[in-house]
């Protein structure tokens, strides 16, 4: 990987029940993620994705870019923005920011319909 290179895009469309599976897997049962009625009552367009689920997709994209070994991901820092919705495609993209020895820093973002749901994500991987 060289400075300015794009990493392969990761595209995932979480199905309607993904937030329920992620709630079970992670233990985060906040009703804004799994109860559409509750979510709309508090002013959200629908039940929304867990931010840490979207962060897991960003982690996957960076591990894949580094060759697929999870041990190559050393650091990941993200800011959550907007809200992710089920049944809409998520696109994770990234650009190599710097390369120092075997340490590569990748600027990453996750978008849905062109709007950022994760921005200013910075991953450090070994390659």
């Amino acid at each position, binding site marked *: 990987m060289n400075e300015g290179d794009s990493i392969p895009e990761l595209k995932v469309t979480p199905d309607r029940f*993904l937030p329920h599976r*992620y709630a*079970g897997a992670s233990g985060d049962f906040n009703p804004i993620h799994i109860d559409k009625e509750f979510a709309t009552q508090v*002013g959200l367009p629908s039940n*929304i994705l867990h*931010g840490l*689920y979207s962060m897991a997709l960003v*982690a996957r994209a960076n591990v894949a870019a580094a060759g697929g*070994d999870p041990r190559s991901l050393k650091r990941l*820092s993200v800011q959550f923005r907007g809200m992710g919705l089920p049944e809409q495609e998520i696109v994770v993209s990234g650009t190599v920011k710097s390369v120092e020895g075997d340490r590569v820093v990748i600027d990453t973002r996750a978008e849905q319909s062109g709007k950022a749901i994760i921005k200013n994500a910075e991953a450090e991987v070994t390659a």
Partner: protein
Amino acid sequence: MFPGAPAPGSIHCRAVPVDTTAKGKTYPPYEYEVGREKIREYAQAVEEDSPIYFDRQAAKAAGFRDVPAPPMFAVVYSGGAIGPPMFDPEVGIDFALLVHGGQEFVWGEPVCSGDTISTTVEVKDIHEKMGMGFYVFESVSANQEGQEVVRGTWTNIVRSGGG
């Protein structure tokens, strides 16, 4: 995870009163035993498809002691340590206005099925910026050998009450 985030320019001037006395406070360690089936459940939820997360032989062939946890499984074993400071009245987070603003993990030794992970949390910072309250927690997780497996920085933002 930014429900109801204020639109640009809509942030009200009334500041969120933050009490910084809990800065530096720590909590008793939270222990979590990592199981192979929990790793499988998590890996399926985030659609990891590498056989190392599902098949012990594949994991061993790749040099792991046992089935490894995907990196973001960190939220599963360290998340339980974040509850006490989140709900600590001394920290004083207003849940109605809470958003998860940012997250960082720095990984060390890989976590595998069979590990016991112990996580301690410190209230790293509480401050006010642009009328919002920032509550930053740092978690440090170590395995049964005392090796650090992950260090997490959890940034929670309490929006202005819109007064």
